[in-house]
Each structure stands twice: as C-alpha cells, then as structure tokens.
C-alpha cells in the first residue's frame, strides 16, 4: 500500500463527513419525531419509564453531586485570585452562583450523564437490537419505539432538570465552603450576596437547558443503539457514537440556548 497525499483527499474526506453528518441529523430528527409521537400513544409503559428515570436520574446523582461541589469550590478559588486584581473580591459569591446556575451546572451535569446514562442506553438498546430482542418485541404485540424509546426520552427530559437543581445547590455550597473556610468570607454575607444577586431567569434558563440536554442524551443513546449492527463491535461503536454526538450537541445547543435567553 502506498501512502499518497493528494490534496483533494482531505476535501473528499470533509465532504464525506459532511454528508454523513447530514444523513445522521436527518435520521436522528425523524427518529426523535417518531419517539415523541409514540409518547402520546396508549399504552404508556409506566414501568419502563420509572426504570429509565432511576437509571438516568437517581444513579447519576453521586457523580453529578461530586462534579458540582468541586466546580463550585474551584470557581470560588479562581475568582478570588482573578477578581482580587480588580479589588472586586466581594463579587465572588455572585460569580459562583451565576456561573453555576446559568452554565456549569447544566453543562457539566449533562456531560457526566451523557457518559454514564447515554452510553448505558446505547449499549442496552444496541444489545437488544443485535440479539433480535427488538424484533421479538414486535412479535409480542409491543411497539419497540413506544416501549424502549419513548419512556427514555421522557425520563431524560425530566431527570436532568432535577439533577441540575441539586447540582446548583451543591455548586453554591462548594463555593460557600471555600469562601468561608479559605477566603475569609462571613457565612451570612456570602449567602446574602448569593441570594440577592440571583434572578429567577438565571435558574430557569439553566433548567430549560437541562431539559433540552436530557432529551438529547436519551435521544442519542436510543438512536445509536437502535440502529447498531453487527455484534459486540457494533454495540461498542454505537456507545461511542452516542456519547460523542450527545456531548458535541450539548455544547453546541448550549451556545444556541444562551444566545436565545440572554441576548435580546
């Protein structure tokens, strides 16, 4: 095999990638529409939904909690070294609470959940696909989109905002710990500063982001799992694709949603 470096190869590769991206986006959109449509059809699979809620929400709690606490702590520390240059050290609580509720809470929680629950969804549905379990559902009077996909989409949509509420609180707590123990803030002052500066909008925008991210995580897990082919290897690449596509989409949508909320 000879290694030829044709300048057009790069162009062709870019083209192929773009085409694949468009195909994927189209496929995922149709898949999402079908999944949402099935959400409104009877029967609603309550057990499957509750299980998905536990898998996505409850089981992600420890990792999201740890991420949030450390993020709040490091934010306070960074802010103190950065802001003291402008003798604006008193703004630390505001900076922490705004960063956490608007941005870092939803984004970091979503990235964590995508690595945990998104991957697990893709692996489970992918395995069901390659072992004919999805076909078996069809032969047993069960619509697989309604039974497997719809409950997970709803669970993602609901679980992420709940996780983010907790992440917000723990993020502020992290900042509070560093602020009071290390930076010499008075506890009461820190809390007043935090609360006085917080608007409903900050929290609500973060929760809306979380809901969107949760839906995207579940969607990418289901979509990639559902169309996986070819045994263990196929399931492996479906899992990778689910996490990568969800992470990229989370960051891209984060920008879009921020623009929508805060630049009017």
């Amino acid at each position, binding site marked *: 095999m000879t290694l030829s470096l044709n300048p057009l190869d790069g162009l062709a590769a870019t083209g192929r990638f773009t085409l694949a991206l468009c195909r994927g986006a189209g496929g995922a959109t149709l898949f999402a529409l079908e999944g949402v449509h099935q959400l409104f059809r009877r029967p609603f699979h309550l057990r499957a939904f509750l299980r998905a809620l536990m898998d996505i929400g409850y089981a992600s709690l420890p990792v999201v909690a740890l991420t949030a606490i450390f993020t709040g702590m490091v934010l306070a520390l960074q802010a103190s070294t950065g802001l003291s240059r402008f003798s604006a050290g008193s703004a630390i609580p505001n900076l922490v609470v705004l960063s956490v509720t608007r941005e870092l809470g939803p984004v970091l929680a979503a990235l964590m959940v995508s690595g945990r629950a998104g991957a697990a969804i893709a692996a489970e549905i992918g395995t069901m696909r390659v*072992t*004919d*379990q999805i*076909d*078996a559902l069809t*032969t*047993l009077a069960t619509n697989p989109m309604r039974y497997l996909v719809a409950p997970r989409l709803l669970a993602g949509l609901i679980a992420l905002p709940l996780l983010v509420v907790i992440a917000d609180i723990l993020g502020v707590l992290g900042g509070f710990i560093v602020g009071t123990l290390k930076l010499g803030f008075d506890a009461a002052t820190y809390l007043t500063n935090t609360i006085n500066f917080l608007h409903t909008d900050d929290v609500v925008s973060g929760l809306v982001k979380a809901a969107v991210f949760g839906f995207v995580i579940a969607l990418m897990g289901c979509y990639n799992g559902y169309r996986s082919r070819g045994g263990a290897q196929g399931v492996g690449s479906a899992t990778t694709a689910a996490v990568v596509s969800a992470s990229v989409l989370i960051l891209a949508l984060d920008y879009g949603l921020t623009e929508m909320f805060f630049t009017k």
Partner: protein
Amino acid sequence: MSAQNGSVPKIRVRGLKKAFGSKIVLDGIDLDIAPRTSMVVIGGSGTGKSVLLKCILGLIEPDSGLIEIDGTNVLTAPRREAARLRARIGMLFQNGALFDSLPVWENVCFGLLAENRITRAAARRKATEVLAQVGLGPEVITLSPAELSGGMQKRVALARAIAAEPDIMFFDEPTTGLDPIMGAVIDELIVDCVKKLGSTALAITHDMASAQRIGDRAAMLYQGRIAWEGPAEDLLTTAQPLVHQFTHGLAEGPIQMTLRR
C-alpha cells in the same frame, strides 16, 4: 396441494425475493401452508430460512413477491390490518432473543401482559404452567435469562412463543442445543400445539428425525428457491437428488460446499 380440501391456505407465499446488497438470498419462494398443519423447512446453513420467517413476520422488508395470511396480502394491506394478522403469529427466534432485563416469568407472559389479557399476579401462575410444558420447574421463574443454560433459554423462549396460544407458530430451530430426550419432548409439544390448539406451524430444523416427527409436510430451500416440497415422511426416501444428499449428509452430490483447502 395448496388447496387441500379446497380451503384457503393459512400462509401463501409467491415469488418472494430478497437480496442484501448484491447477495441474493431469496430468489422467488413459493410456499403454501394449509390451516392446522405443520410445515418443516430444511436447507443448508445460510440459505435464507431465517430470512424467510422474518419476511413473513414483517421484520425484514422483501424486495418483491406476495405473502398472504388467511388470504390477505400483508405486503399491500393497510398497516393496521397487516399488523393485526401478524400479531397472531408466535415466533421462536433462533437465538432465543429473551429479554435479559426481565425475569423468566415476565418473558414468558410478555405478550399476554402487553395485550392486557392477564394480570401480573396471574402471569406468574400462567408462566409456571407453560414452563412445565417445556420441562422447566417453578424454581426458574424468578431467575433472569442470563442465569439459565443455553438449552433452558431455548425452552423459555419456546414457552414465550406459545404462551398466548397463537394461531400460527414459527419455530426457528426449536431443538438445536437440546439433549435428544428433551428434543423429543419439544417435538411432541409442537405436534400437540397443532393437534390440540389447532394452530398452524412452520418450523426450521436441521434434525431429520425431528423434522419427521414435527412435520406434516416438508420443504427444502436451496439457492433461494423451494427445491422440493412433499410429505415429511418422504424426506429420507425421496429420490430427489438434492434432498437425498442433504438428508443423508453425503459429501458427494449436486450440493457443492465451497471449501478452500
């Protein structure tokens, strides 16, 4: 033979074709299965037997042809109607395809629960009953499929396929992986389903003894077509060269295994 006693065949397949890319798997299948009879399909590995079943079930879209269930072409019928007809088929998948997130009893009664024909409490009792028919005791009902041996999984899958007493039953290699005695028990169970429940059965098997026990009629799939069709008891005696070579397992004959040495 399609119109035994002049009745409409339960399943009628005409000119069914399916290719995956350039690989032609089914190349014009014609097959009739009369109501309340059982048909056995034999054929070499990879000749498209499982694909044939999946086409009838609507799990694989064929390229062309006609598939009638009770006289209605499911390929052209409205989606609802086709789904209603296909819902009457119980299927045993070749690899079992048990739901590994659910315990055995929920697997067995999955279809009944999905159609709300049974409560969850009653489902456990029903599962115990059906599992007894396939030679499994009540102690397995709370296990997960991963905790069972391969042959036990196959029998749970069989129990799941027949639990709803479907009108039509498809069995993809029901006795592969079972010991000879259990194999004979399962064969008898399938015959019972046809005789007592009045179901119509379509079974794929590689075991000639089992084929003769289960089948009223038999068909051999070769190169994408039905190469021979006749009474199952003729499988070992027919002079048809393809069937003769296949059922006797002869290396010499019209079927060439392409091996590179």
